[in-house]
Structures are given as C-alpha cells and as structure tokens.
C-alpha cells in the first residue's frame, strides 16, 4: 500500500527532475574558454604552417645538406646549414639534463624530506620560486662571470677554476649557465612530485624499519620519478630555446672554424654556436641577402622538431614509469 503510493508519486513527480533554470553563467564561461582555446591553437597553427612554408625551399630540396652544413656568408652556398647549431643545442640539452637533474632532485628531496621546517627553509623556498622568474639575461650575466671570465668576485670565492675548466666561451659554459637557469624549475617540479608521494607509502616503509634514506630510495624516488623526469625534460626544452643568455656567454654566429660531429666531445670546450643564435643571425641577415629568410625559417623548423622530440621523450618516459608504479 505504502509502496504503491510512493511509486505513483515518483512517476507523477518525474517532471520535477527536468531542467527548470538555465545555467547562463556556466554556458558563457564554456563559450569563452572554447573561443580562447580555438584562437590560441589557430595562431599556433598559422605560425607553424607559415614557418614551414617559408623554409620549404631549403627543407624540400636539400634537407640533409641543410642539417649537415655550416654557417656561411651567402645563403645560396650549398654548404649552408645548421650542424654547428644543432651540435651546440644538443649538447647544451645534455649538459643541462645531466647537471640540473641530479642537483634539482637532490635539492627537492632535501627540502621536502630532510630540511627541518623552519623560517630558513621557507625563505629558501621563496627564493627558489623567485629565481624561477628572474629574466634569463641575468642568468647570462651570471654565467659570463662564473663560467666564462675569471671574474674577481668568483675568484675571491675560490671558483675561479670554473672558467679554466670550461674553456671560457664554450658549449660547456653555455650548458652550465642554462642548467643554473632551469634549476629552480627543476627543483619546484621535483618538489611537487615528492610531495605527491602518499603518506601511506612513506609510513609503510618506516613502519617496516626502513631508514630515511631507504625510504627515499625505495618509495619517494620511484613514485616521484615520472613527475621529476617530465619536469626535467620540459626544463631542458626551455633551455634549448633560450638565446639571450647564450649571447652573453659568447655564442658566436661567424668565424667558427670547426664543424664537429655530434659525438665529438672535443668541441665542448671550444667556440660554439646554437640554433637560437643562428636563427637570430639569419633573420638579421635577410635584408642583405633575402635567401637567409628561408634559411632562418628552416632552422626554426629544425629547432621545433628538436624540442618536440624531447617533449615526446618526456611523455613516453613518464608513461613508462607510471605504468611501473601500477
């Protein structure tokens, strides 16, 4: 009896669940978001298509020669190409990853797990966050004084040997400078990854008699690995696109005598260039020799592909580690 009453009531009341009010604000918000997404994607697409079209004359006819060629004074030179820049950029990426990764992860683990929570540690975190926003030219200056010239301040601090070790204006100096530049970003992303490790895992390890370093090694690092790797590789692609600090640490766009092969490490302590520098140079040359406009566009495409490859590696690595994490 009671049940039937409820049943009928529900059936009659079904209209109560149909929409009474329209959510105008929500609809408007969705539309605005969608519009801005479409606009930004469209701008990006136009830029890419335009660049590829501009560089097509180089890429379609002599892509391999372009990748293997070197800096030339005339754009119709059939030895014109970006190999020296590719060499510089690739090694800058490797040096950045190899130095910023361990230091960044170490700093993040220290700050999250070891440093006592005090006023000092929060000041340090604030400083790191601010360093991530410092203009790259400033890092260029730092690199110039720290790695390139034997400056008085750093000599006084006992760091004068760095400039000797790097060979002055070299790929090594540039890579280390950019490593310092991306270090705050690496630390911040690694910190976030470390913080995301579930308390249950940490307590589980401690509860079984693990020491702190065992806990870090067996729980924190494996669990945080995907996040840390992604952060590092994104930082690496940012470093590869930088031009301003490279100018300060002495990347040059002419007078390079050598064109070393990719794995020829003897070029690391010598005069160098990098893709962003070549692009800037060729764009500025296009008034004198319009053919350089095409070359610059082609070089941009090469740089984009390099960055894209790195980001893809980041995603693949992250997926692999996440799968391991279960």
């Amino acid at each position, binding site marked *: 009896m009671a049940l039937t009453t409820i049943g009928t009531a529900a059936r009659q009341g079904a209209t109560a669940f149909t929409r009474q009010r329209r959510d105008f604000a929500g609809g408007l918000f969705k539309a605005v978001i969608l519009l801005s997404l479409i606009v930004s994607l469209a701008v990006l697409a136009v830029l890419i298509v335009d660049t590829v079209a501009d560089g097509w004359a180089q890429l379609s006819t002599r892509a391999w020669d372009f990748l293997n060629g070197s800096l030339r004074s005339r754009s119709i030179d059939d030895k014109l190409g970006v190999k020296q820049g590719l060499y510089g950029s690739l090694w800058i990426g490797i040096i950045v990853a190899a130095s910023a990764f361990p230091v960044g992860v170490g700093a993040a683990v220290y700050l999250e797990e070891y440093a006592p929570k005090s006023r000092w540690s929060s000041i340090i975190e604030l400083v790191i966050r601010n360093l991530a926003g410092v203009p790259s030219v400033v890092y260029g200056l730092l690199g110039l004084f720290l790695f390139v010239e034997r400056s008085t301040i750093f000599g006084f601090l006992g760091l004068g040997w760095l400039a000797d070790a790097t060979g002055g204006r070299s790929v090594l100096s540039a890579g280390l400078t950019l490593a310092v530049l991306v270090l705050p970003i690496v630390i911040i992303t690694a910190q976030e990854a470390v913080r995301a490790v579930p308390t249950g895992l940490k307590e589980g390890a401690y*509860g079984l008699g693990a020491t702190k370093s065992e806990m870090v090694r067996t729980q924190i690092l494996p669990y945080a690995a995907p996040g840390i790797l992604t952060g590092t590789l994104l930082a690496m692609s940012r470093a590869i696109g930088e031009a301003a600090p490279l100018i300060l640490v002495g990347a040059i766009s002419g007078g390079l005598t050598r064109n070393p092969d990719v794995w020829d490490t003897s070029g690391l302590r010598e005069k160098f260039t990098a893709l962003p520098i070549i692009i800037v140079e060729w764009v500025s040359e296009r008034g004198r020799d319009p053919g350089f406009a095409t070359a610059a566009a082609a070089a941009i495409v090469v740089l984009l592909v390099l960055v894209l490859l790195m980001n893809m590696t980041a995603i693949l690595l992250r997926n692999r580690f996440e799968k391991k994490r*279960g």
Partner: protein
Amino acid sequence: MTTGHDTRLDSFNDTGLDPFNTKGGRPEDPDMTATDQRADEPVLDPAAREGAELPTERTVIFDVEELNVYYGDFRAVRDASLKVHKNEITAFIGPSGCGKTTLLRCFNRMNDLIETARVTGSLRYHGVDLYHPKVDSVEVRRQIGMVFQKPNPFPKSIWANVAYGPRVAGLAKKGPAMDDIVENSLRKAALWDEVKDRLDENALGLSGGQQQRLCIARAIATDPDVLLMDEPCSALDPIATTRIEELMHGLKDDYSIVIVTHNMQQAARVSDRTAFFSVEVNPESDTRTGILVEYDSTQKMFSNPADERTENYVTGRFG
C-alpha cells in the same frame, strides 16, 4: 605490578646500552617465557569465558606511565598509564579524536615522523625506555610492526611487498631464504592460498581485504615481537573484517597485538583487555584532550565496567 619486568634490560638501559642496535636480536630472556603462564586459551567470545580471570602475572610488554603526547602546544593525550601483556590482544576503544591513534603511534616511535609531536612520561618496552635518546627508532620499528588504517601496499609485486621488511633489515636477500620468509608470512596472514600463483603481480590488484592481509604479512615478515594495528578493518567489508579478526586470534600465539578500533563489537570479539579513552574538553582553551578512562579485562569492561562513562559508551548511550 612488576610482573615479568625484565631487570636485565633495565640494567642495559641504565648503562646506556642500546638494546635495539643488535640487528634482529630481540631482547629475549629465558625467564620471560617462564613467567608466561597461560592456563588456557582465551575464547573468542567474551561471554564464553565469563568468570575466567586473565592471568595477571603474564609478562608485561609495554609499561606506560603518565604518558602525555603533545602536538606543538596542544595536548592530545593526558596522563595515560597502562600495561600491555605478552600474547594478548589489547584493544583501544573510544570516540573519534580521543588520541587512540596518537597513543598507538608512540609504541613504535611513529610519532617521531611528525615534527610537532612531543612525548613526556614513561613508555617502557620490556623494561627499556623507548624514548631514551640512545634508542634507535628504526630498530624499534623492526621489532614492533604496524598495520595502518588504510591498506597501504607498496606499488610493487606481492612478493616484493612481503620481502621489503626483511630486505631493509638485512635478514635475507633474494633467493630461497627470502622465498621461505615470504611464504611463511603469507601463510600466517591467511593469504598464501589466494596469491601463491601470482606473487609477481602488482599488489594494488588485490581486493581491500587482501591488501590489508598483505600488510599484515608484510609486518610479520620482519619477525616482530608486537603488532600494532590502527583500525585495520575500518576500510573493509564485513566478510573481510571477519577474516582479519579470525586471523588476529591465530596470531596471538606468536605475537602481542595492540588494536585500535572504533567498533565496540570488534573489541569485544577479539581482545583480552580493553582500554577505553574519552575526551575531556578544556573550557578555557576549547581544546579536547584524550584521557584513559578505564582499562581492564575485556570481559569486565563490557559486562561490569567500574566507570560510568565506560558503561555509557559500551551500551551505546554515548554521543
């Protein structure tokens, strides 16, 4: 009062020697087993052992005296005193926020991980002051295992989960010796038959109840003396809960168990002794401090408690 008090370890402590720095060595004393005079197996149902008094001369494992636990300035537990006995199941019951977890986590120095946590008073384990500066918390946790409220298996294989503790303790390396430890631990945790064919699979693929039994197996694998369990069944369904309760009853022969539970029936079903905690509201600071109201044999606590507050709580008349 001082039944089963291990004087040898007392002197250890006085000379400043750390009984926990001997790897895997538990403060074993031949006399200890001799003092452990258990007349008969206590039965699961407290009603069935009506009148059967618990042997009071049973070895004391933990001797807690006037223990206070603070988080910063906030006192979470005030003046708790109780004794935990060997091969018994001791239950902590009480409303939420009365400091059961806080007190339990003192027993294996898990509170050390919380920076603000501070302990005063005395907490002796086989006569050794657990908070003595020379006592190493890592060694403490190797002997006093813990099972957490939410099952927390590592995102590794079932085998690797169980092998974790023995590996960090250096008890065994990969190989037949470790395989034996893994098998024995899983058998004791009543999980072996369910997982023996998939030891290489990720532990996160197990059901909640299986995960919790895996966590028990993992804790057993380090060959601890005591198991601390913080509401081990609160995330489980009734069937999984029953399995864990049966399992605890079997484990009692080898281990001493302290279990926190908010489920009074569970305390009544599994435990030998029950401690009832409550909160005391401080009118000035509006803070709530946990206090130990009453501690006695479970049978007495549920049939004839001395304190009115206990009676109200166990009969369900408590808000």
